[in-house]
């Protein structure tokens, strides 16, 4: 069988070219083919937000994004959120506040909140709660997550 045509896109700043079937979602391409396993597979149905990545800077549920449709776009995963050295201010705030429990949902929260803080640098608490309402934490640790985002917004991280 002929291999499918490649998709070309930038992945965490790097030009990437990879053959992918039409019925493959971005999440599977990232985790299984490209071994970027920071992006988590939770519900696989768009409910939990664990698989959130940025496509052209916009939060996208990678479990519901056909990989072929990122052709020509810029994809940023949790691996690309950090600066070359160390952690982003938001990631540092997550560490300092202790905004993780089991940690499985953390990449999704960090990616979602990264885009949110870029667009809303001085959010109210209510705006933060709304912004992360598509990300589920099954350890129910939302308070510290909200606190971490507040701290990053305040520049306290």
């Amino acid at each position, binding site marked *: 069988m002929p291999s499918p045509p490649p998709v070309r896109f930038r992945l965490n700043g790097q030009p990437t070219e990879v053959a992918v079937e*039409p019925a493959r979602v971005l999440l599977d391409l990232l985790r299984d083919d490209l071994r970027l396993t920071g992006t988590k597979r939770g519900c696989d149905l768009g409910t939990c937000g664990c698989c959130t990545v940025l496509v052209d800077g916009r939060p996208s549920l990678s479990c519901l994004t056909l990989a072929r*449709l990122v052709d020509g776009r810029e994809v940023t995963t949790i691996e690309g959120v950090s600066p070359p050295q160390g952690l982003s201010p938001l990631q540092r705030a997550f560490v300092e506040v202790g905004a993780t429990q089991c940690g499985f949902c953390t990449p999704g929260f960090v990616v979602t909140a990264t885009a949110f803080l870029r667009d809303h640098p001085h959010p109210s608490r209510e705006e933060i709660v709304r912004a992360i309402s*598509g990300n589920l934490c099954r350890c129910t640790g939302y308070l510290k997550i909200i606190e971490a985002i507040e701290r990053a917004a305040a520049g306290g991280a």
Partner: protein
Amino acid sequence: MHLDPFELHRPTSVDEVVGLARDLAGRFDYLAGGTDLLPNYKMHLNLRPHLIALEGVRELRGRSLERIGAMERLADVEAESALLAAYPPLGDAVREIATPLVRASGTVGGNLLVETRCFFFNQSQFWRQSLGFCLKADGDRCHVVPQKQKCYATFSGDLAPALMAVDAEVEVAGADGRRRLPLEALYDPEGDGIRRLRLRPGELLTAVHLPAATRGDPGAYLKLRVRPSYDFPELGVAASGALDGGRVRRLTIAVGGAEMRPVRHDSLTAALVGERLSDDRIRALADAVERATRPVHNTFLLPDYRRRMVSVFVRRAVERLREGTAG
């Protein structure tokens, strides 16, 4: 969960879409934001061998006070404060659809045409198989109303009642050209949870048109759901209207999330034109809309509760409209 193989088409113009739809003759689905279609495909619900992705069709974009392209993302509409202020039910509805992450991909057209839902349908293939499937997918009977050969799946979009209430129209394109129709005419009163639209084969929803006549009119959309941050509506009630000197000049009520299609109750609101919106009149209208709404037991909340919430929501929405006018 994996997706079964399909062929993916990426047209860039409406004409190209219409041509593809003609060639593929019913063996395809349109792919808009994918936030409802792809979960359904992962559950093996009514798979088609071809997907026509609409994201590259420029003509389906654009947001203004007059027109919203069908492929506009819900999150982008949500950011249009002037548009939402001009049509309050739209503002209420768009902010309440699913989650911010779903709204980042989900589209206006996708929400208007969202697949109907039922707890015997929105299940895994294994779950459905163990029950012998159902009329809506792979089977030959309805588990909700077994004595009928009809599908009772619930229309679960939020935008439809909100936009119907403000007299929105939709534009569609197909092999016979383009046409515009009132939004409520999109949903077939003779249909059921399967055959629910009055679109001709292959026809594509291209845009929503918002009328100047209702721009700025007060109104509201109220939504009932279990988890306020995520769920589809168990009921959605929109009201829009205008008063002149305290008397009703225009009043519309539309109900979604309750039956197989969203319904506008013009015959019940007509009697109020020229009248003052007294508490008694509002209550009588609310009771009448409740009596006209017949949910069945196919979503999470019990139908009797959903039905009784119809009058509560109609009353609240019309009261808010009355207050909005006073303010």
